[in-house]
């Protein structure tokens, strides 16, 4: 090995190879726990919005399980919710019996970019709960949506076709909710996103979507 470049390259190759083998070993070691963690986090998020359900499954129809946004887009556009996307759907069951859906909404009209949250809706259209998956609003203003549960809890247990936003004195039972003071943009993003989720729910119910296990919406 007279050529120093060949020697350098060989040694670098050896270092890279050994690093690769070590990485492979650790990947294999942690693969299981990481997958279990992710599953746990997801189930916890679903359970937070539909506490009674014990099983969450995707729809059997791949059009609804992989690209629900394309299915829902026309209906949302028709209702004027052009800045909200439905990006996820799971169907919940309790003891094998249909008990609601969890719709994941991405609202593009947040103040600090996209806000993603899950809305749990029971079979009769009552909102079971809302939980935020990702949000990057202004600390101290829009972030209060996350920090202060009293904003999102207004929707919990309410049954309406849609909700309107008011500055104060709202009555969720008759379809009006209070905005976060000083954070109209964030409040509006949530209010519109939740309405979009309700539209999607209605549509899913009309179509009678079901899971592979035979749980059917409707």
């Amino acid at each position, binding site marked *: 090995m007279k050529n120093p470049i060949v020697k350098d390259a060989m040694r670098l190759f050896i270092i890279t190879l050994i690093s690769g083998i070590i990485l492979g070993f650790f990947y294999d070691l942690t693969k299981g726990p990481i997958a279990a963690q992710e599953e746990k986090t997801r189930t916890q998020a679903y359970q937070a919005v539909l506490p009674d359900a014990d099983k969450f499954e995707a729809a059997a129809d791949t059009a609804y399980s992989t690209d629900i946004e394309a299915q829902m887009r026309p209906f949302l556009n028709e209702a004027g919710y052009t800045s909200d996307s439905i990006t996820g759907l799971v169907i919940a069951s309790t003891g094998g019996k249909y008990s609601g859906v969890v719709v994941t909404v991405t609202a593009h009209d947040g*103040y600090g970019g996209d806000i993603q949250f899950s809305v749990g809706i029971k079979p009769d259209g009552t909102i079971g709960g809302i939980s935020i998956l990702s949000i990057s609003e*202004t600390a*101290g*203003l829009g972030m209060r949506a996350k920090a202060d549960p009293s904003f999102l809890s207004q929707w919990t247990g309410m049954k309406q076709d849609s909700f309107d936003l008011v500055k104060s004195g709202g009555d969720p039972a008759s379809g009006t909710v209070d905005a976060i*003071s*000083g954070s*109209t943009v964030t409040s509006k993003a949530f209010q519109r996103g939740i309405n979009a989720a309700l539209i999607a729910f209605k549509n899913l119910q009309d179509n009678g979507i079901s899971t592979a296990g035979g749980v059917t919406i409707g």
Partner: protein
Amino acid sequence: MDEFNVSANPHFRSPMTTGSIMRDVLLALTPAALFGIYNFGAPALIRIVVSIAVCVLAEYLFQRGMKRPVTVSDGSAAVTGLLLAMNIPSTLPIAMLIAGDVFAIIIVKQLFGGIGQNFMNPALAARCFLLISFPAAMTGFVYNGVSSATPLAILKPGADAAEGTVSLAAEFLGTTGGTIGETSALALLIGAVYLLARREISWRIPAAYIGTFAILVFFLAPGHSFDALYLAEELCGGGLMLGAFFMATDYVTSPDTPAGKLIFGALAGFLTFIFRMFGGSAEGVSYAIIFSNLLVPLIERATVPKPFGYRKPEKTEAAGKEA
């Protein structure tokens, strides 16, 4: 040499001192401050007094503690305190105001070397500190006992029509919600005329600032271009008058050169337009001015005036011809 003074000789002694300038500024701010007290009542008075007292005290204690010469008698700390008080809502908790005062004097002014050394306007920096720290308390405006939107929030492109309407006359006189000292364009203009007449401030910065802002709003405001009423409402609303005449003209944080003053004013006007029309919050004057403050050294370097009788070196001309 040019590190200390960019103007050419001959020099002569002016009777103006820091103390006399600060007294004039305090006097010029008085009409707006008095109107603020009339408009918002005792809470405004309390905040103005507390703010001035805390600023002066913070400067005194810091300079004593650091064994530096005590300079509170020049009145600059009192001006900072008054300006900050005029830049907050009358409902801001006193403890937060005190935190802002201490921030202005200790962190922005004294840690950078005291008067003449601060790189941005202390009162404005403190206002931004409070705005970022306590957004809810700093933007919760109450007028006559009701929580109300400021004229600017109503004028903002995309605002709800339900927020209310703006009356230009009320805005000009100042009988609207807002910070303690910003509401009355009239009272601020009286003070500004006094300062201009006493030659304490140059016309260049406010003229370039308000001029640039007005031109941009008149031609380019989304949904309101060529709308003279909207323009007048934007000019009288928010902190524009207070900022343009009293804060952008701060000697330490604005350029010394005549051309630099025009560039500085135009930059602040442009930024205010961008922030107000396209930014997240309704007001943008404070951020526009402190941002422009940061560029002052660069502006001054680019606009050093030519000495009298200065000619371009022959060399560059010859080189230019050859090329």
